[in-house]
């Protein structure tokens, strides 16, 4: 198990005044003691909008939850604070780029952070009586509390990643020459002063430098008006300290293409002829290729060629325009709108060239079968490591078959064979399967039998398993309850059915094994309430309503009994995260059907995965093995190396490992 941790979806149930009536009386003694912060209603969930975010489905299910507003819309709606953060956009040529993804995540994190104080204001205890479940929703802020349930698989890196360089979004109000006026949220720059002397001009820089991590950065301006008397407009980029009273290109660290003579200027007042002149309604583009350290310009969609080479590697370059005649006006497009020049294709070509280079790369040690042997090992080890035992075995067979066919000779030295028959892999697979099926008892039993030290030495995992067991029991109660009062929401019904099917099929598969194990272990004495699996199975066969209600009651009683046991065992645990987890878990029983409550995410089947992974890793570590498979490490290394190659605008900037190679 790795350390990726998501925030607990949590509610201190005691504070939910409106829920009091639905709380089962039988639970109240548990509840009252377990909620130490009656006023805390901190509902937190990360705001990662990733496609695979399991949360998103669960939010929709309740039907009572307001839909999550889209980023831009949300901000416009916020009025005052919208000025702090303009709508987020991704320039077309950066779509799918790693840096764009990072920025987007950072943006979402900021949104979430800004939402936090607002919702704290609205969700004080007094306002709770209306609808607690929808109030929670506004508080989707991240939290870093110790013990966590993982609800989604991807980490939102934004919370830790403050270092993502944003791209320019507008001309900077605070970084302009005073006679240059900005309009249209900083997109329009207009010279409003009196005419400048030959040496003077008015320039403005963008709010952020062109990020090297983009690999290629490009923006365009449209000359809205060249003014009455001339077209002394310069477009380019400059360092942060270059004087704004001069036309860009004339000062050190400043580079530009001038409209009056079509010349380019870098660091000096003497230009070089480069392209055509430009004036009103012309669209001029300016781009830097950080990989090659060159800059280029475009006019009305046509490439004008490389303008500057050997740009400084450590200088932040800000998009800059300068002008000097009254009435001169330019409008900038940092990617908010489509570009006139096909910059997308240029970036695609750059990517393709790098891809081709990668394809040509040779893996070393070609003598030993090189790449093929390496991949065979990676796959075989991953399958065994992660407990895909059958697949690992069959894969190994197929590899051997292949090698044999190739060698054309039965006695040939078969180069590959994995030791997948090892019992550990089988045992770990059983434990994992049990958890994924929601059968925590079985997982505990197997773990205690095969790896007695693991639970002792990893108390937090033991605790999580116990909590998970409670959650599974609540799930069970909810399912039974739903059967007694058939008013199901279609989606939850479906998921219930499928889990039960799974459980049944596994139950038969594993039956013999279970018997065997029980014999082996002698009488393994589970604490009361652990072995309710058989009862579960009975229940599913029953159709009689009355009987069902009885079962439901019994399940509830058992759940309470187990909850008390859990509480007795951990109530005096001094660790804060344990206390919190207990509170959150116990809060579930406040609802007659927790699946309909705002706590539904806790009940998600997906929540089993991280517990299973964590236990699997702990077992591996206890066996002296690495907690992650070689293939996983290979991906980690690749990502890290590519990031390293992207930070300075190198070739890595054109690679999005996940998007280009893993999907």
């Amino acid at each position, binding site marked *: 198990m*790795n350390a*990726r941790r998501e925030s607990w979806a949590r509610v201190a149930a005691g504070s939910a005044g409106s829920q009091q009536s639905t709380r089962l009386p039988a639970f109240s003694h548990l509840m009252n003691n377990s909620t130490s912060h009656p006023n805390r209603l901190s509902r937190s969930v990360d705001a990662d909008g990733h496609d*695979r975010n399991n949360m998103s489905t669960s939010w929709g299910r309740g039907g009572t939850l307001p839909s999550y507003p889209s980023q831009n819309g949300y901000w416009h709606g916020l009025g005052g604070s919208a000025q702090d953060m303009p709508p987020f956009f991704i320039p077309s040529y950066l779509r799918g780029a790693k840096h764009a993804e990072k920025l987007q995540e950072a943006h979402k994190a900021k949104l979430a952070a800004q939402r936090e104080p607002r919702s704290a204001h609205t969700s004080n205890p007094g306002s709770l009586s209306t609808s607690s479940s929808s109030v929670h929703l506004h508080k989707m802020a991240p939290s870093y509390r110790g013990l966590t349930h993982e609800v989604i*698989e991807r*980490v939102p890196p934004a919370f830790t990643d403050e270092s993502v360089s944003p791209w320019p979004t507008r001309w900077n109000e605070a970084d302009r020459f005073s006679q240059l006026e900005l309009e249209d949220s900083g997109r329009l720059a207009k010279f409003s002063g009196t005419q400048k002397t030959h040496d003077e001009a008015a320039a403005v820089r963008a709010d952020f430098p062109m990020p090297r991590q983009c690999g290629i950065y490009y923006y365009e301006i449209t000359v809205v008006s060249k003014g009455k008397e001339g077209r002394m407009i310069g477009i380019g980029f400059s360092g942060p300290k270059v004087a704004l009273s001069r036309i860009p290109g004339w000062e050190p660290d400043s580079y530009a293409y001038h409209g009056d003579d079509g010349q380019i200027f870098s660091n000096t007042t003497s230009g070089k002829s480069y392209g055509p002149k430009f004036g009103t309604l012309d669209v001029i583009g300016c781009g830097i290729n950080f990989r090659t350290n060159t800059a280029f310009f475009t006019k009305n969609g046509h490439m004008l060629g490389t303008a500057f080479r050997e740009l400084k590697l450590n200088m932040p370059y800000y998009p800059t325009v300068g002008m000097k005649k009254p009435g001169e006006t330019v409008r900038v497009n940092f990617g908010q709108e489509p570009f006139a020049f096909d910059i997308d294709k240029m970036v695609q070509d750059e990517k393709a060239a790098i891809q081709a280079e*990668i*394809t040509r*790369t040779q*893996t*070393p*040690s070609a003598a*030993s079968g090189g790449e093929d*042997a*390496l*991949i065979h*090992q*990676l*796959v*075989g*080890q*991953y*399958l065994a*490591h*992660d407990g*895909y035992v*059958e*697949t690992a075995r*069959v*894969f190994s*067979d*197929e590899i051997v078959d*292949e090698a044999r*066919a*190739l*060698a*054309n000779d039965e006695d040939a030295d078969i180069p590959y064979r*994995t030791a997948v028959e090892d019992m550990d892999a089988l045992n770990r697979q059983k434990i994992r399967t049990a958890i994924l099926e929601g059968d925590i008892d079985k997982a505990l039993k197997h773990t205690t039998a095969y790896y007695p030290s693991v639970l002792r030495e990893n108390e937090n995992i033991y605790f999580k398993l116990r909590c998970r067991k409670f959650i599974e029991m609540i799930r069970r109660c909810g399912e039974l309850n739903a059967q007694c009062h058939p008013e199901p929401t279609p989606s939850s019904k479906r998921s219930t059915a499928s889990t039960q099917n799974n459980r049944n099929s596994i139950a038969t598969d594993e039956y013999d094994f279970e018997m065997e194990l029980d014999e082996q272990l002698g009488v393994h004495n589970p604490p009361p309430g652990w072995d309710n699996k058989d009862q579960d199975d009975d229940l599913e066969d029953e159709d009689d309503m009355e009987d069902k209600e009885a079962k439901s009651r019994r399940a509830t009683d058992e759940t309470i009994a187990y909850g008390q046991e859990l509480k007795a065992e951990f109530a005096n645990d001094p660790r804060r995260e344990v206390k919190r987890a207990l509170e959150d878990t116990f809060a579930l029983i406040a609802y007659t059907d927790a699946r309909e409550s705002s706590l539904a995410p806790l009940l998600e089947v997906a929540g089993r995965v991280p517990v299973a*992974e964590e236990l699997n890793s702990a077992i591996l570590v206890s066996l002296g093995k*690495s907690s992650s*498979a*070689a*293939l*996983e*490490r*290979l*991906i*980690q*290394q*690749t990502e*890290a*190396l590519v*990031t*390293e*190659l992207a930070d300075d605008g*190198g070739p*890595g900037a054109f*690679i999005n490992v996940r998007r280009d*190679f*893993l*999907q």
Partner: protein
Amino acid sequence: MSSSTVSVSATTPTQHSFQRKIDDIKPSKTDINFVVMDYLVSEGYPRAAEKFAKEANIRLPLEGESIQSRVEIRRAIHAGDIDSAITKINDLNPQILDTDSALHFALLRLQLIELIRACTSSATADITPALNFASSQLAPRAATNPDFLKDLELTMSLLIFLPETGTLHKELTDLLEPSLRRNVASKVNEAILTSMGARGEARMRSLVRLRQWAETKARAVGKDIPPSLPLGLQDVDERPVNGNGETGDVMVQ
């Protein structure tokens, strides 16, 4: 290979900062499973793919449809039965070999090598079939392309040298290596996949190359990374991958 291969002293007590960056990256299991499945299907391990679909609870991708015939073709090529491989490829899609003359030539040359191997295996064998095949099938194609011609000439010289094995040039022994069949087989597989509109190369392969490329690049520009980046394959397979005692997982070049 550079000297960095022999960085045995990697047991530094302090952790390299780059290692922390590596540890901070949390690949998604879903992605990894996808890459593994993609590999099993595109490189033709149908039974493993099926098991994996079951065990990991993911769906077999669409390219799965051609998997059986691709496996049969691979098997035929690996076994040196080029004739039936070509028939099977044409059954699947006659366009593949028509449009890729280099691939077709590579297959035919493989067939010629098999014929030469057969006819030189005993002292009494007749070399006529090999000669006939070369002149009827390969010579007309070789005439159109200098690379083909060079390959053909080299292959034909096997006829002269093969009886006294052990004194062959490396160029010639390479022709007799199983790896040649494997390379041709995997090219055929890629061509079939591409003809079906699928991605030709398995992502796993691209990924392994990307890893290698990125490390090479990063070292070339002097990035601060540890002298070696082990993958930790040893705990499954302690055996050194090649004769040099270099463990296979050190992908340092």
